[in-house]
Every structure is written in structure tokens, then in C-alpha cells.
């Protein structure tokens, strides 16, 4: 009873502390999103319609863009999660030292457009890496260096996102590793489990909810961010945010609802994924929290 009262008190306290952030999100972001939804569903005369969405799915350029965005988002998210998880798993004890942690944190402090620009400087055909390889004689001509930025497969965009997001994944996973009770690993081993069983039984259940949440954040961000694909992408195919930007500033105002609709789609998918994953992992998370040994 006392515990329950304290929980309720803490819950109210948490809401109290969160209120300023919630208000800002609701009024600024929420209003922006709501007005984008409205504008994607209304004609200039104010009539409600789905015609812009229908038009989107009839547009080859949009479908190409959507496919390219899906590809970039999927690969960037999976690579960031896998690399982040592997690095955290191997190095989490080392990350307790502030110097090592500081090294990993550096990419987080760099804005995405700067990161994109750095990738361009390093990996373009006229960039530092190609110059270095040319100077040491590994390539005879800079044009022999593979096209890694402003390429049709989005390699430069993916590399930038992976470089930026891996530290974010590590930042999210580190507390999980510090919280895991490693006596469970010993239980697994005395019950006949292997090292893989240790990971599957002791670590994975705690990592899963966080990985899902991080994946959704990354999907939402990568599929809707503008600056990196604008810097490192090509005109065809271009990612959805760049395509929407072009529609918005094309000078033809009739394209603006299309721009909004194009961005509502990845936003809506991200929200839907967030809702589904919350529903799926909530029970699992509660079992973990309530059932762990303190």
C-alpha cells in the first residue's frame, strides 16, 4: 500500500516535471504536424479530400523516392543497431572510463549537416581518402576511387547516418548493460547454457525493448531528415524529404499539399510502429522490471 502510494506520488511528480516539455511538443511540433495533416487533406477551397495521397501513389517519382527512402532507412537503422550493439557488448566495461566514453560521444556533438560535409570531404572522389590512396600509389587516378558520395545507392548517406547514430545506440544501450545482473549469466552456465544462451536469456530480453525504441527513433529520423540526403544524395532517386522540399519550393503552390502528404506518410508509419511496439513490449518490460531480483 505504501509502495503503491509512493508510485502514484512519483507518477504525478513525473508528469509535473514533464509538463513543460509536453506543452512545447504539443504546441510547436504537434501543431505543426496537425497543420501538415490538414493541408495534405484539404483543397485550396477547403474541401476535405484524399486526392493528394492518391496522386502520390500514382506518381513514379514519389514511388521511386519512397523505395529509396525505405532502403536507406532500413540499411542505416539495421547497421547502426548491429554495430552499436556489438560495440557496446564488447566494450561496455571500457566505456566506464570517461576518456573512452568521450571519444565515442564526439560524433553525437557534431550536427548532421557537418557530419555529411565531413563524409563528403573524406570520401568523395576528390576527397582526402582518394588523395591519400593516390599519393601512396594504390590508385593511378582519382577517378578510380569508388563513388561513395552523391551516388545512386546512397552509400554516403548511409555512412553518415551510421557514423552519427552508432554512438546514439551505444548511449542508449550502455545503461542496460550496467543494469544487467550478471549472476543470471552464471545461472545459465550452471544450467548447461552456452555463451550464446547467456546473451539470449540474460541480455537480449533487456536489450529488446530499448533496441525497438531506438529503431523507431532512427526510422523516424532517417526517413524524414533533410540535410544529409540534400548534401550527399543525387537528384534521381532522391529521398522523400528532399523530394518534398522540391515540391514545397517549386513555385507551384498546388504541389504543397503533395509535399505535406509525402512527409505525413513516413511520420504516420513511424507513429504506427511506435504504437505497435509499445503495445508489444509493454507486458514484456513490466515482467522484467517486476520480476528481477533487487
Amino acid at each position: 500500500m505504501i509502495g503503491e502510494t509512493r508510485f502514484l506520488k512519483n507518477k504525478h511528480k513525473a508528469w509535473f516535471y514533464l509538463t513543460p516539455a509536453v506543452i512545447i511538443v504539443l504546441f510547436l511540433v504537434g501543431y505543426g504536424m496537425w497543420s501538415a495533416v490538414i493541408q495534405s487533406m484539404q483543397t485550396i477551397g477547403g474541401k476535405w479530400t484524399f486526392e493528394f495521397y492518391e496522386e502520390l501513389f500514382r506518381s513514379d517519382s514519389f514511388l521511386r523516392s519512397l523505395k529509396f527512402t525505405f532502403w536507406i532507412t532500413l540499411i542505416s537503422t539495421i547497421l547502426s543497431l548491429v554495430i552499436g550493439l556489438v560495440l557496446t557488448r564488447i566494450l561496455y566495461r571500457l566505456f566506464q572510463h570517461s576518456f573512452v566514453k568521450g571519444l565515442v560521444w564526439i560524433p553525437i556533438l557534431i550536427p548532421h549537416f557537418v557530419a555529411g560535409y565531413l563524409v563528403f570531404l573524406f570520401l568523395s572522389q576528390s576527397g582526402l581518402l582518394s588523395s591519400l590512396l593516390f599519393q601512396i600509389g594504390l590508385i593511378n587516378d582519382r577517378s578510380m576511387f569508388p563513388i561513395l558520395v552523391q551516388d545512386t545507392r546512397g552509400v554516403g548517406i548511409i555512412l553518415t547516418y551510421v557514423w552519427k547514430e552508432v554512438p546514439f545506440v551505444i548511449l542508449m544501450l550502455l545503461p542496460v548493460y550496467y543494469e544487467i545482473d550478471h549472476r543470471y549469466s552464471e545461472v545459465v552456465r550452471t544450467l548447461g547454457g552456452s555463451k550464446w544462451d547467456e546473451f539470449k536469456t540474460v541480455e537480449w530480453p533487456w536489450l529488446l525493448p530499448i533496441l525497438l525504441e531506438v529503431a523507431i527513433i532512427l526510422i523516424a529520423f532517417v526517413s524524414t531528415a533533410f540535410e544529409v540526403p540534400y548534401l550527399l544524395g543525387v537528384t534521381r532517386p532522391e529521398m522523400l524529404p528532399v523530394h518534398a522540399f522540391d515540391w514545397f519550393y517549386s513555385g507551384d503552390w498546388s504541389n504543397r499539399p503533395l509535399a505535406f502528404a509525402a512527409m505525413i506518410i513516413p511520420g504516420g508509419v513511424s507513429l504506427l510502429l511506435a504504437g505497435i511496439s509499445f503495445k508489444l513490449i509493454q507486458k514484456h518490460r513490466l515482467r522484467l522490471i517486476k520480476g528481477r531480483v533487487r
Partner: protein
Amino acid sequence: MNDLIQCNQLTKNYSGEPILKGVSFSLKKGEHATIVGPSGCGKSTLLRCLAGLESIDSGDIMLNGKSVTKTKPEKRSIVLMFQDSLLFPHLSVLENITYGLKRKKVPKKERISEALDMIQKVKLSPWKDAYPHELSGGQKQRVSLARALVLKPDLLLLDEPFSSLDASLRESLRGEVKEILREENITSLFITHDRDEAIELADMLAVMNEGRLIQQGTPYDVVTYPSSTESARIIGEGLPLEKGFVPQHHITAIDPHNRVQNDQELVSIPGKVTALTVKNNSVCYRVSWEGGTILVPSEDKLEPGQDVVLKAAHVYPYDRNGREWSNTP
């Protein structure tokens, strides 16, 4: 009968500090041994070494006649039950119990049937689908026991598994565990710092102090004839006197005003009643004397604060070294 497990001169150091100093003992199949000793004496380290979770610096561990000193924990037929139940919180009771069988690739049908049998033995059938957070402390330890027993290990190690439970639950669970272990004919090694628990669960009782097993024997022998002052202090209350040791069960407290001096009584030490308590359904008194405190019965009705005399008719005299005493009065 051959020994199931045999430990020869096990030593273990942590950063140069010796934790185990040549521990040797053996157990036969179906035997239940208990090691009792104060906190930090190396009991848990010994169990961890036996389970393979810690390596030993020297010595040898033989299981069924084969050395398992270098064998990985998952390959030893030894299961360790920890102080906390450590049930996997995302798995149900049934899933927790079948966990080890699954790792050993026992077919699904078989492992479920074996787990259900075990669940019945630990009286948890109605909770087979429950999750750990829905169970009480005692139920969790039962699941933990079932999870270990269902594997039918050659040796079950129990590291103070009842220490986190309240006294009455601890007592009842102790009895149940003892019964299940006997039914299943599982050899067990139990460690505890609780003397009563140690005595109740053991066929063989060993006393451990500062990394050494200082005495081994039947619970009766160890309690009645402690081999040294060290052992006597660890295993039980008593009066370590200059001329010898008087075990607790030989001592009574008397009201000096009500009693006439009896020549048969070799020991007569003044003390003061500090508290009244009940032990094994009898009234007992905690009496402080110049060497400490002791829990003793009395035929007189005593009150806290009252002066008493501690009496005993037997003293177990020390041997020539002045440290050991002989095993007969």
C-alpha cells in the same frame, strides 16, 4: 561405496589474498553435506569453484572418479542454487524449469512432462503458468530448486538459498527441501552461516573458518565434541573455559537463592538474565557471563535482570596443546 565427489587440497587466492587454503573433503552418492562458517570464510568461493564459475589455483576436483577441475561449468553435472532465486523474469514457472532441459536438448514433450512432475513435487502446480513477479519469496525458491533438480545433477550446491526468507518460512522450506533431496536421491552440498539450518540439513557437517575445513563429522559429533575452540565457537554456543569446553546442551541456569550447591556440578559461573525467549517450544533465557552471552534453559522461573548461576556437570577438557580437546568427557 566410491566417492561421488572428491576435493583434494583446493586453494584459491584473490589478488594475493588466500581464500581457500587446502580444502579437502569427499561425498558419497546421495549424501547431504553442510558447510557452516562465518561470513567471509570462503564458503561461497568453494561452491563457485566446485560449480566451475571460479578456477582454482591448485588442487583437484574429481566427480565420479574423473577430474573436472578444468571442465567448463556447463559441462559439469553440478548445479548451483544461489542465495536469490534468480528466476528469469521473462519466463513463466514452467519455462524456467524446462530451461536447463532445453539446453540439454531434451525433446519438448519429455521436458514438459518432467518439469510438470517436478512442479508437483514442489507444490506449485497452480502456478505453472505464472511469472516470477507473481510469486512469493518462498515460491520463487521452490521454482529455483525445481529448476535445478529437474536436471538430476550429480551434485547440487546450495548457497544459503533460504537466507532472504523470513524465519518461519525458512524453517518450513528447509524441511521440504530435505525431503525432496532425499526422495530424488540427489547428493547435495549446502552452505550456511546458520547453525540450526546446518545441523538440520546435514548427514555430514563440516565447519569452515578462514579458508579451511577445521572439522568434519556427523552433526551429532561436531556439535557435541567440537575439535577446537574455533570449531566450538562457530558451531554452537557453549562455555569455552580455561579447563575445557562445555557445550550448550549441558548447561542450565539456576536461581542461586533457590538452589543448594550440588557437588556433581563441575561448572558454576555467575551471570545475568538479559532476555527471555522460546526455542523448540521451550522457554529459554539469554544469559550474559564474562565470556559473552549464551541461550540456556532453566527449571526456575527467571526474570530479565536477575542474577543467575550457569551450571554444568560435564566439561570436555582440552588436549595437551591447550587448543584441541578430546572427543570424550
